[in-house]
Structure formats: C-alpha cells, structure tokens
C-alpha cells in the first residue's frame, strides 16, 4: 500500500483563483520527491492541502489508508502529527528556547492541557536533546530561537519535524531564504535524516539543480496541474523548459497567477 495516495485534488480559493486543477500522485514510503515549478504554480497550496492547512475543494487524499479530507479534531491532529512540515520562513517560536521548539514536535502526541502548559515528558526532552545533537546544534540548546542564524534555525525546524516521528515530511521551499552554503547543509541533512529513518519527503524547490541532486523522483507543477512525474534522469532540459514556461501564450500574464505562498486559511 502506498504511504499516500492523492486523487483529483482541486483547490479553488474563495476569490475564484484556481490553485490546483486536479492533481494525482502516490508517495511510497521512504521516497524523496522534489516538487518543482514556477512561482505561483501551486506548490505551496499542494503541500498545505495534504496536511489540511489549506482546505481542498475536491479530491481525495489517503494517508496510510486513512482519508484525510473531512477529518476533524482528534483525527486531524493524529494525521498531522505523522506528517511534519518544514517552512520557508522556518516558523520557529522565536521567543522561546531552541529545545522547546524541538519539543513542539511532540505536541500532537500529548494531552491538550499538558501541551498547553509545556509540561513535556522527560523522555521527550531527552529525545529532543538527542535530535539537536543529530542536527549539530547541541551547543545552542538553551539559546532563544531568534538568536540563531537562518541555516541553524532551519536545522531546528528539521529537528522539530523529526521529533514528530513522522512517516512523511512536507518541506515548503526549505532553502529559499538561505545562502548557498546553508542551503547545501540543510538539504543534505534533510535528505540524510529522511533516508536514515525511512521517512518519505515531499520537498518544494525552485532550484532545479538541487532537485536533481537529492530527489529520487521529481514532480513538475505548472498552473495547478501536474505536468511531469519521473526520475531526475528523465527530467530533460526540454522538460524543464516546459514546466517553467509551458506554451508561450499561457505564460506571460503574471498578475493572473495566484500568490506563491498559499493564502492563509483557517482549516
């Protein structure tokens, strides 16, 4: 059974903008999939539909055999906790310690009130420390998150994602706000941890070279449609051109395209 099976996924925003226009794909356990496509193609929307941070309009998403669309409350929390997310802007809670940020990955497994008060279990704290050592930030454990550099913050983001003990990591442009050196570190550690722990990863990227270097499979999105799905070897220069430009008459109307990051919606 596939880890995740997405069928006919559509997203139309309240203002009528079409984010996704019928997407189908499956994710097998442990796959590292890069999702590429021009800005506004719907990459962010796609990832956020998968964990229901954005409410899909139509379609079906089966995660470990469970339908996620329509899931509410406890069931939704249970789906989300096994599907970590990594963000372009890191999204760490800046005013608290690095350690606490990693522990936030455990919230989905805790009772509501214990989590709200930050009463983390000893075993969770030990695990969080171990994860920080794993991403090479042992010395920063007790610093405030906003004291760290961008690359370090994203590694905390990865540690937080791993703390969820996920089956799947959704990485939304994890290196778009980082310099080349930090990008390399973040991508290589993300890739390494995923393969070591057997975690599947869907990673939005706009650097084609990075996608080719790390991914075992690449999905190309253009204007809310899947236009490519194959191995890095199959991604030829013509294919890249097609994904990013498609037919010339369709491509040059930038104002009609939805914003790159998915609009905030209360799901």
């Amino acid at each position: 059974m596939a880890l995740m099976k997405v069928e006919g996924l559509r997203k139309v925003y309240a203002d009528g903008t079409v984010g996704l226009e019928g997407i189908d794909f499956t994710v097998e356990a442990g796959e590292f999939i890069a999702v590429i496509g021009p800005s506004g193609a719907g990459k962010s929307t796609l990832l956020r539909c998968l964990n229901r941070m954005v409410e899909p309009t139509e379609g079906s998403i089966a995660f470990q055999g469970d339908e996620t669309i329509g899931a509410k409350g406890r069931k939704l929390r249970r789906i989300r906790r096994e599907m970590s997310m990594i963000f372009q802007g890191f999204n760490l809670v800046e005013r608290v310690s690095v350690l606490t940020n990693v522990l936030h990955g455990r919230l989905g497994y805790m009772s509501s009130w214990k989590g709200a008060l930050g009463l983390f279990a000893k075993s969770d704290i030990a695990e969080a420390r171990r994860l920080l050592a794993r991403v090479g930030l042992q010395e920063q454990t007790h610093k405030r998150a906003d004291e760290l550099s961008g690359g370090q913050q994203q590694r905390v983001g990865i540690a937080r994602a791993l703390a969820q003990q996920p089956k799947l990591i959704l990485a939304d442009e994890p290196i778009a706000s980082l310099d080349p050196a930090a990008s390399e570190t973040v991508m290589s550690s993300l890739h390494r941890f995923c393969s070591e722990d057997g975690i599947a990863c869907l990673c939005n990227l706009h650097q084609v070279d990075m996608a080719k270097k790390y991914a075992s499979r690449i999905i190309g999105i253009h204007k809310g449609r899947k236009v490519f799905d194959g191995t890095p070897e199959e991604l030829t220069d013509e294919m890249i051109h097609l994904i990013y430009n498609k037919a010339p008459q369709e491509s040059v109307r930038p104002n009609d395209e939805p914003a790159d990051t998915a609009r905030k919606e209360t799901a």
Partner: protein
Amino acid sequence: MSEQQLQRIRKWKRNQLLLFLILLAGLSIWSAFGTGFSLPALWGGFGDGAQFVFVDLMPPDFSGLADLIGPALDTIYMSFAAMFVGSLIAGALSIFAAATTSPHPALQIGLRAFSAMFRNIPVIIWTILLVASFGLGNLVGTLSLLIVSIGMLVRCFAESLEEIDMGQVEALRAAGASYWQVIGQAVLPQFLPSFIGWSLYNLEINVRASTIVGMVGGGGLGFAIQSGIKLFQYKDVSMAVILVLVIVLATEFLTNRIRGRII
C-alpha cells in the same frame, strides 16, 4: 489587473485624500465658531488663573503631609489592584476577542462590544453609578478603575494578538497541536511583551484616573482634594496635588524602567 484599473484606483486614492483634508479643515472651522474660541479670551483668563495658583494655592501646607500619606497609599493600592486583576481578566477575554485566536467570530464581536461599553462609559460615570450601590470608599474606586481597565486592556490586548506572527501558529497547528496548545506555546510567548507593556501603561492611566474617581467618592487622594476644595483649604489641596504629581511621575519612571528591562 489592467493599466486602466490601476489608474482608477490611483485616482480614487487621490480623491480620498483630498476629501479627508477638506473634511478636516471644515471640522476645525466649524468647531472654532461653535465654541467661540478666541485667543484674546484665552489671554484674559490668565490673570485670574495666576491669582488662584500663586495666592490661594501657594505655598502648599507641608504640615498636612502626614494626613495625606494614607489617602496616597490608597490611590496606589486602588490603581495597582485594578491593573493586576484587570490585566488577568482582560488577558483571558482578549484571546476570544482577537480575530487570530478567537474560536468563533460571534464571540469575537460580542466581546469587542462588551469591552467597548466598559471603556467608553467614562470612569467618573462608573464611579457615580457604583457609589449609589456600594457607598463611598476605596472599593468603589477600585471597581470603577477595574471596569475601565478591562475595557481598555481587552482592546489593546486583542490588537496585539492580531499582530502576532501567524507562521509560528501555523507551524504548531501543522504539527498536530490543539487549540489550547497553540495558544499556550505559540501565541503566549509572542503576546507576553505586549501584555506586560500594556498592563504597565494601564497602571499609569489608573494612577491618573484615580484622582478623578476619588473626587466623586472613590476614596484616595482625589477624595482628599475634593474635601479640601469644599472647605476652602487650598493649601492642603495643593499639597495633595503635588503628591498626585509625585505618584504619577514615579509610576511613569518605574514602568519605563520595567518596560526597558523586559522588552
């Protein structure tokens, strides 16, 4: 968006600004006529004012200081108690009154209206109403200050809550956090500095307002001032006014120091 649409928007914005300026000028002229405002009249009042300040009020009677210490402390207690209790209550309410954290829009609107009523009825009216039911004294002063504090703080807190970074909230929700977990772990850390900042500012306002509250029966220094005026004991009044000034300035100094430390 087409060039035409852009131009239309630009034109509309320009007209809006023009309309605003005309309205502002109109209102100023209208109110100047309405109040019979004139600079010479302002000047004429100076003489009587100076007479009152320098002859009747001066010099302050320092021998009355001992009797004023009690009311001065009352003023400080009332202001502090209203701020402390008020900020806790308002802190809890504001979570439901902010668009970013409210579980339901109806709750948000209801709480906003409720707090608007609390803060828009002047503190002096609250005191008069409460004196009628509880009699004179510090309790009434504290209660009226508390009501207005809650009204003000709910609004300030809710607005701070609406400015928090939603990315941090999104991250925790995506990790499977529940509503209260998001509030406790992503919202509160961001909210804490403004919570403290606004509460301290509220303390300053309470200290100032407590004088007015006292004058209509709420206890503290205001009550002493009012009694002094009625008995024509202006030298005592000026002593009390100086004390008010000292307390206000001391509070401002202290809260600034604390703010500087925390934020």
